[in-house]
């Protein structure tokens, strides 16, 4: 009788201790949950920060392109138009007619270039029409200088984008790669391959430039550009691989979960 009473009280003690342990587990779980929430919040803040920076850089890049094009292209066309008009001699009708035809041609070309510039001013709206479209637009502007020939290959079926922010970051990474090629590579041929497999988007950019030792960067600006590429890719849970040797061009591979 005494031992059964003791057993009852011992059981109650054990059950109470079990409940307290259960509560300890709940409290530890809550602490871990809040810590993870904080880490996630920091990651989100970093992402927003980089996204804002990316948007600003895309706009800045657009403005630089517009400025260069206004000076190099439209400015030249309008100067030529003005010179041609000034050189018209009304007495020489045959010659004047030819020159007026030339002026009309120059004016039409200027208007065409201005319209293209207008579209470019809608800079980040390129992303709204899709990443492939934005890439094609960027390629057009590079080829206009005549210094680089760009070959673009795109997978037949790309999934529809559901995250414009991710597209913007991928586009900015591509711009960074192309800027590096234009500034440092002295390349004549650039190949851009946009593929999709196994839930990941693969962007491969190769050039036939002078290359560099990717393990030992000499130029600080080139190093920072490549570091930016890696950082931006990491923020969208992707990987960036940069392979280059002096004299053998450069190959940059970006793999990102998509969409």
């Amino acid at each position, binding site marked *: 009788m005494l031992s059964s*009473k003791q057993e009852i009280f011992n059981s109650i003690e054990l*059950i*109470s201790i079990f409940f307290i342990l259960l509560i300890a587990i709940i*409290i530890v779980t*809550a*602490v871990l949950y809040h810590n993870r929430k904080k880490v996630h919040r920091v990651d989100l803040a970093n992402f927003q920060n980089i996204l804002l920076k990316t948007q600003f850089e895309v706009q800045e890049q657009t403005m630089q392109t517009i400025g260069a094009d206004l000076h190099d292209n439209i400015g030249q066309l309008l100067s030529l138009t003005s010179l041609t008009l000034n050189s018209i001699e009304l007495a020489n009708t045959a010659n004047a007619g030819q020159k007026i035809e030339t002026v009309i041609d120059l004016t039409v070309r200027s208007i065409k270039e201005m319209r293209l510039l207008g579209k470019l001013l809608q800079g980040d709206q390129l992303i709204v029409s899709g990443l492939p479209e934005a890439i094609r637009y960027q390629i057009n502007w590079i080829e206009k200088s005549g210094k680089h020939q760009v070959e673009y290959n795109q997978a037949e079926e790309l999934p529809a984008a559901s995250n414009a922010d991710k597209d913007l970051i991928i586009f900015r990474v591509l711009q960074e790669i192309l800027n590096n090629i234009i500034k440092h590579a002295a390349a004549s041929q650039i190949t851009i391959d946009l593929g999709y497999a196994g839930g990941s988007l693969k962007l491969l950019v190769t050039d036939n430039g002078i290359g560099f030792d990717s393990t030992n960067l000499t130029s600080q600006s080139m190093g920072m550009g490549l570091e930016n590429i890696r950082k931006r890719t990491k923020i969208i849970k992707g990987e960036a691989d940069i392979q280059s040797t002096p004299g053998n061009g450069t190959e940059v591979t970006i793999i990102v979960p998509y969409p």
Partner: protein
Amino acid sequence: MFSPFYLFYFGLLIFAATLAYIAYKKGDKKSIAMVVLLILTLLFEVLALILNGRYVFLYDLFIPTEYMLFCLYYWKSQPVIKTKRWAMLSVACFFVFSIAVAFMVFQSQALYMGLVTWNIDLEGFLLFIVFTHLLFNIDDEISLPIYKIPEFWVSVGVLIFYGGVFTILGLYPILLHVDPATAAKKYGFFLNPLNVILYVCIISGSICFLQNRKFLIQ
């Protein structure tokens, strides 16, 4: 008149109430619930000791008041309106239940011991749900570790106390029939330290608020 433990216990209650009042005056509006709760607890505990176990059904009036004040604290800490409404609805239901129980207890003294403890168990079960929800939904927007937020300590104290006394209170009427002396001893063995833990946690919460306020002002 009072044992050393009870003197320490009442001192702890007074200290906790004082700190909660200071926190209230310094801007922590929800601490008013703690101030009122702690003062009422002190009064009831003193009354219970003086009455020496008679008129235990008075606990049926104190328990819903205690539950209401804890829910008021939760209500002021929780931003989501839907959960706040559910908490206040549960207060109304629990009040009705407790008044009914108090009436039944008054009618039949044979039932009273069981129903008082089951009332506290039901309160504990409801508070367990409420404060677990608060623990996982603490507003931690400011960059402070979770253990520096007052609501964390109040939640921890409530969960430990009501989780720890759940079994002993639920089975107390049966234990009284089995062995009254051991039952009373075990009751004190569990309740006394858990009470101390609860009020130490409430004190920690008030201290956290006062320290954070200094940090935010700087």
